[in-house]
């Protein structure tokens, strides 16, 4: 029923010609999950699926340093000198410290959502360096693992200014749209089914999902967009490309839902089934 209420809320805004205010959408989802999962404290949402599985939670704690080698490799990528003597660290305030909570952000000049990956590539392009493949673990993955580790404990502070509401709305629409041969929406599992088990693994709730990326699986970084692409494949849908407007808007919406929650990069995850 709540799924319907959310859809109705969005429809009501659409019918009135206004977009669903992001904060109203977030609050509705928070309220719904709190009602559905009363046993879960606000702080536990960042644990994702492990919030419902003590054994998984213990394994994550045991492997708290799983990202150490990756972070070290990422620091080298982050500080490597470009041909003009600058580096990725020079493109961001404080060398990239405490910035991850502000991404994705809306860039009114290009009228698009800019993820941290895009900002990294914008920096490289501005300095006439080849851009990173957003799915490449050794470059983009490592750089993200490092720079995001510099924002651990920083709270998600993504903003959606009025000009960005169409992008937020597009992300919301996609999160609630059933796709692919199996006819799942993201919300089917992560809102309607949050906390239940799919293939033996608890489904992470929508709130908190954007806080711990990249995750570290078998020593390799997996970005949020790569993980969404895995979900899309499981849904029987052709995944949108990493860095596409579709996935950027989806990441924007999803990250806004975690507003106020602390970031913790490089969370360990078990091998994919």
């Amino acid at each position, binding site marked *: 029923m709540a799924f319907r209420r959310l859809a109705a809320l969005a429809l009501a805004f659409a019918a009135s010609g206004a977009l669903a205010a992001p904060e109203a959408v977030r609050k509705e989802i928070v309220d719904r999950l709190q009602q559905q999962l009363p046993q879960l404290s606000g702080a536990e949402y960042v644990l994702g699926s492990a919030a419902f599985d003590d054994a998984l939670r213990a394994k994550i704690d045991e492997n708290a340093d799983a990202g150490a080698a990756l972070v070290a490799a990422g620091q080298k990528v982050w500080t490597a000198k470009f041909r003009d003597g600058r580096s990725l660290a020079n493109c961001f305030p404080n060398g990239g410290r405490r910035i991850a909570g502000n991404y994705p952000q809306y860039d009114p000049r290009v009228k698009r959502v800019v993820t941290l990956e895009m900002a990294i590539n914008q920096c490289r392009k501005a300095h006439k360096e080849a851009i990173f493949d957003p799915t490449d673990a050794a470059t983009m993955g490592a750089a993200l693992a490092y720079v995001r580790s510099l924002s651990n404990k920083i709270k998600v502070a993504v903003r959606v200014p009025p000009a960005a509401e169409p992008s937020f709305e597009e992300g919301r629409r996609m999160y609630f749209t059933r796709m692919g041969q199996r006819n799942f929406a993201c919300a089917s599992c992560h809102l309607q*089914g949050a906390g239940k088990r799919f293939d033996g693994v608890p489904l992470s709730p929508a709130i908190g999902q954007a806080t711990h990326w990249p995750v570290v699986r078998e020593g390799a970084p997996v970005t949020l967009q790569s993980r969404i692409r895995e979900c899309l494949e499981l849904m029987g849908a052709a995944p949108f490309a990493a860095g596409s407007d579709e996935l950027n808007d989806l990441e924007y919406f999803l990250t806004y839902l975690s507003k106020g929650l602390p970031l913790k990069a490089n969370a360990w995850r078990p091998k994919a089934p």
Partner: protein
Amino acid sequence: MKPRATVLGALAVAAALPAWAQRPLSGMELFVARDKGYCISCHQLPAGVGPPSTSDLGPRLEGARMRALGKAGIRAAIVDPAAANANTLMPPFGRHRILDDQEIDRIVEFLNGLP
């Protein structure tokens, strides 16, 4: 030599395939296979039937409940579950051609025969 090597290679691959790849999958195999029903990812079966599962996105399936639904009811629920419940999470296995008619028949028989 090359074509012969290819044929031999194909034969070797065929021989290496598991037995289920060379005959139609049974109802239970279709229920479990990731690229078929993959029903086990959401449902649990009665103790002692099929692989153990802790999945609970869908309800636990018991024989008595299946027989109360009847074979036509089970089939309808597999072909297009949204026809009875628009909010269902269950994929439309028939309508989206995830499974063909014969495969659905075998799953229906399997479920109808559950203890």
